[in-house]
């Protein structure tokens, strides 16, 4: 059984995670400076989450052009933000696929670091499984 019961719940949890991240002024400034538009193409449940300097956090279709696209399942997204799935493992096991300049992908990693700290509480609040 998938971690997220439907797309709506996934948007609520992951969209909420990224929205709270952008409320952190230091993160927001770095994100705007980086000028990187990220698209998470998520399957099971199917959905899109955009982090775009021009649009902010958008759950669902958006008319921006991604610099980096990451394909990942909802379950693996959950495990990734819980630090249960490390990036090299995810890459090696083909659980994450990325398209976009590698330096941009790598540049994005430290920007999203605070999301790791915030995610367990958000997941717990929504009753998602945590080991």
């Amino acid at each position, binding site marked *: 059984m998938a971690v997220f019961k439907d797309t709506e719940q996934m948007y609520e949890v992951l969209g909420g995670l990224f929205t709270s991240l952008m409320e952190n002024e230091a993160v927001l400034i770095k994100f705007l400076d980086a000028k990187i538009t990220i698209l998470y193409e998520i399957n099971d449940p199917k959905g899109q989450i955009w982090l775009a300097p021009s649009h902010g956090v958008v759950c669902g279709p958006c008319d921006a052009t991604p610099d980096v696209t990451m394909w990942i399942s909802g379950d693996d997204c959950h495990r990734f933000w819980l630090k249960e799935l490390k*990036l090299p493992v995810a890459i090696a*096991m083909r659980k994450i696929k990325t398209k976009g*300049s*590698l330096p941009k992908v790598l540049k994005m*990693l430290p920007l999203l670091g605070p999301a790791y700290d915030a995610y367990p509480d958000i997941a717990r609040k929504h009753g998602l499984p945590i080991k």
Partner: protein
Amino acid sequence: MSYIDLNIELTDEHEQLKRETHKFAKDILRPASLELDKMGPDEVIKSDIYWKAMKKGFELGYHSIFIPDTWGGMGLDPLGIHIVLEELGWGSADFAVAFGVSCFPAFFSSMMPNEKLIDEIIEPFCANTDATFIGCWGITEPDHGTDTLCVGTEHFDHPEICCQVRATKDGDDWIIEGQKSSWVSNGTVATHAMLFLTIDPSMGMAGGGICIVPLNLPGVRRGAPLDKMGQRALNQGEIFFDRVRVPNDYMVVDHESYTGMVDLTLATANASMGAMFTGVARAAFEEALAYSKERIQGGKALFEHQNIKHKLFNMFQKVEAARALSRAALIYNLNNTPPLTHYSIASKVFCTQTAFEVANDAVQILGGIGLSREYPVEKLFRDARAALIEDGANDSLMITGAHCL
């Protein structure tokens, strides 16, 4: 000499990058590598010429082209990376490889950054401007060479075949024991290694790990610098590990994801070699073209002889084909994870073979003087010959690549 770029969408920044890197390659790297080529390997690393060239490269940031500017790296886009690597290769294959492998510990750390790696590896490496933080890629061993890279081939998962450098867990640390062979580029001058080793021998080579190892730790010992035929200004040498204790944070990849990371490493390294040796091929072509227009034989310039023109045009075509393939492979594979590694392999094999053939033709066009050290073509020929084996022997790489077809 420069070349017509068939990419009509090159930005002003790319053009500037090409000009600046070419100037560095022409003014610093080419003359330094020609001088160092005449020395023994011990003399090379004692020479001011070597260290001035290395320091200038670090000062200009060429050691950090793969690393995002978030950490202080140059953070070039894939096309920019190709442009730089081709120009560095044009100037000196020796230094191009030295700068390329130097970034490996910090580059791979930037893929899985933790606080310790950020503070102790990534940021200090990017900030280094005097070549006092030099990386190396410790993979090759006395008993293992290209076979360490052949993910997907039958032997890779064979439990009786695994790398001899072993890591075993001891509390929160890892203990490393074993030897890397003479072919480790930057081996005797590096301060840090990105070390490929065995964690779970029952999995064969697939049971490996990747560890960042500061080479000033107790138990690390170096061999003598290798005396070799080509790329003589590139320092290479053995590294020995005698129960070297490394903290867990430095083991960036374990056996769970080792295979995928070997694949990613090979895709990046081979794509880079393709770009560098496009530069070597171009250097040899340009030398031969210039000479053919000066040298008079039979009452006219060599260039006016039909068979020389034919040969030069063939060389020109090969250089252009090498650039087209190496750029496409590098740009694709630095834009897609997981990469299509067989395209990087195709680039490496094709471009190093092209460099060898073009340098061979250049020696032939120059005639007797081409064999002498008066012109750089004999060095380019030796450098290109080494590249048919370096970074994976072409024959074996092709077998690995063929598994993806």
